[in-house]
């Protein structure tokens, strides 16, 4: 009798512990995205509004763009929201994704200690990197194959400089943007960040951070975000129709306005540009 009781309790426990709702639920969309859209709180802000508009629940996993693209290639998600245009175009050309739509942008900025020990303030990107290299000023890199990291590597190449690797002044964190900014702050060094994450960092420190924006506005520093649906021909199980609904919504006037209104410390983090 005792054992029967125990078995019944055990079974009840198993059923109770099993997850409710299954993966195949049509009213759910799985997205892989970059750390900046998550860390700034943009997706926390958009997801409930998307659910109100369409009844679809948005679930997302935030990693660097490199891994997000890999998750898409492996059919683990239905849609991507990423920011590395050359890699995205290759992803589409390789037949993994379709319907790539640009949705918003912000820009990258180079930040560093207010005292600016290497004197880079206001210089062009090419000069900034040359000076940092020659003065061996501490530069903190993401080093994680993310969109920001890919951008940084392209800037070194565009400046005709070898990409630093083992140099003692070049620190590769392999972590997210805010962590990387904190490392730069601890090491009193420079780093490149998207403006959205920088504003989030400013707001965390109540508007008075030790690292200041030193270089901004160069055309090469544009940071474009796009969404890409996973191609049904590549992944039979990808929810292409649901993904299409999301793309339609995020590029539509309502969501574009929401992105425009998303502010921290009174500053907008992203500029919508789906219809440009």
């Amino acid at each position, binding site marked *: 009798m005792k054992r029967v009781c125990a078995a019944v309790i055990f079974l009840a426990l198993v059923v109770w*512990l099993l997850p409710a709702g299954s993966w195949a639920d049509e009213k759910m969309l799985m997205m892989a995205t970059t750390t900046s859209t998550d*860390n700034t709180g943009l997706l926390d802000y958009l997801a409930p509004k998307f659910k109100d508009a369409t009844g679809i629940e948005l679930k997302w*996993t935030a990693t660097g763009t490199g891994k997000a693209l890999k998750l898409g290639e*492996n*059919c*683990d998600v239905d849609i991507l929201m990423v920011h590395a245009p050359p890699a995205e175009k290759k992803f589409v050309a390789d037949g993994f994704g379709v319907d790539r739509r640009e949705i918003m942008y912000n820009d990258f900025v180079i930040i560093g200690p207010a005292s600016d020990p290497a004197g880079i303030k206001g210089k062009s990107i090419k000069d900034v990197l040359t000076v940092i290299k020659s003065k061996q000023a501490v530069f903190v890199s993401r080093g994680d194959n993310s969109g920001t990291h890919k951008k940084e590597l392209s800037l070194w190449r565009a400046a005709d400089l070898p990409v630093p690797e083992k140099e003692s002044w070049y620190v590769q964190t392999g*972590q997210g943007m805010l962590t990387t900014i*904190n490392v730069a702050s601890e090491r009193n060094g420079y780093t490149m960040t998207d403006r959205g994450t920088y504003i989030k960092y400013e707001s965390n420190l109540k508007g008075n951070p030790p690292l200041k924006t030193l270089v901004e506005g160069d055309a090469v520093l544009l940071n474009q975000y796009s969404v890409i649906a996973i191609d049904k021909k590549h992944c039979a199980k990808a929810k292409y129709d649901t993904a299409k609904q999301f793309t339609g919504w995020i590029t539509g006037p309502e969501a574009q306005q929401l992105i425009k209104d998303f502010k921290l410390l009174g500053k907008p983090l992203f500029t919508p540009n789906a219809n440009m």
Partner: protein
Amino acid sequence: MDFILEGFVQALHLLAGGNPETYSAIWVTVRVSSYSIGCSLLMGVPLGFCLGYFDFSGKRPLRTVVDTLMALPTVFIGLLVYAFITHRGPLGNFGLLFTLPGIAIGQTILALPIIIGLSATAVESMDPKLRVTIMSMGANRRQLFISSLWEARHGLLAGAIAAYGRVMTEVGISMMVGGNIKWHTRTITTAIALETNKGQFGMGVALGLVLLAIAFGVNISVSFLRRRI
């Protein structure tokens, strides 16, 4: 430094104020770790018993293998499990990626060697005369097994607690396989990682304290149980 103190205050706020995100993470953590510890006990105790009780050729090397597996890094398990359950992997059709059962598979792999190893040690360190005594009382094989397990209960419990602690506090598997999805697979540890990435150190400390509080609760109940039996 401020954020440590801030974390203490915030931890109280989160728990007392019924913060839904925190309770969701606690719930996920408790659910998935109970699941994996249940599975690994079911498999691990009998295997550990056999490993400790019987003498067979190759027993020493097998022990060494089990002991080595106790040091499996969680990110490595996460990567292995991901490779199997990604939608293009061999088990892709089950749709286990980004789900709690997916995490539970990984955590079971993490806990199993600990349960097997510590169960085997508990059985080995039993008084060798016990077997003769039980047999002389006319026990059959099944009764012998049950009574030996009962005699080793404190060692088994210690193994279960060690494994539970490891499972509940791991972050590699939950992050890799679960994806840290809000309301679904966000555990306390992945939430701490996220809050730290967001620069919300106070919140991270608060969640860490919450995790410690749960561990404290589990250990209190276990030590209560131990005094009773």
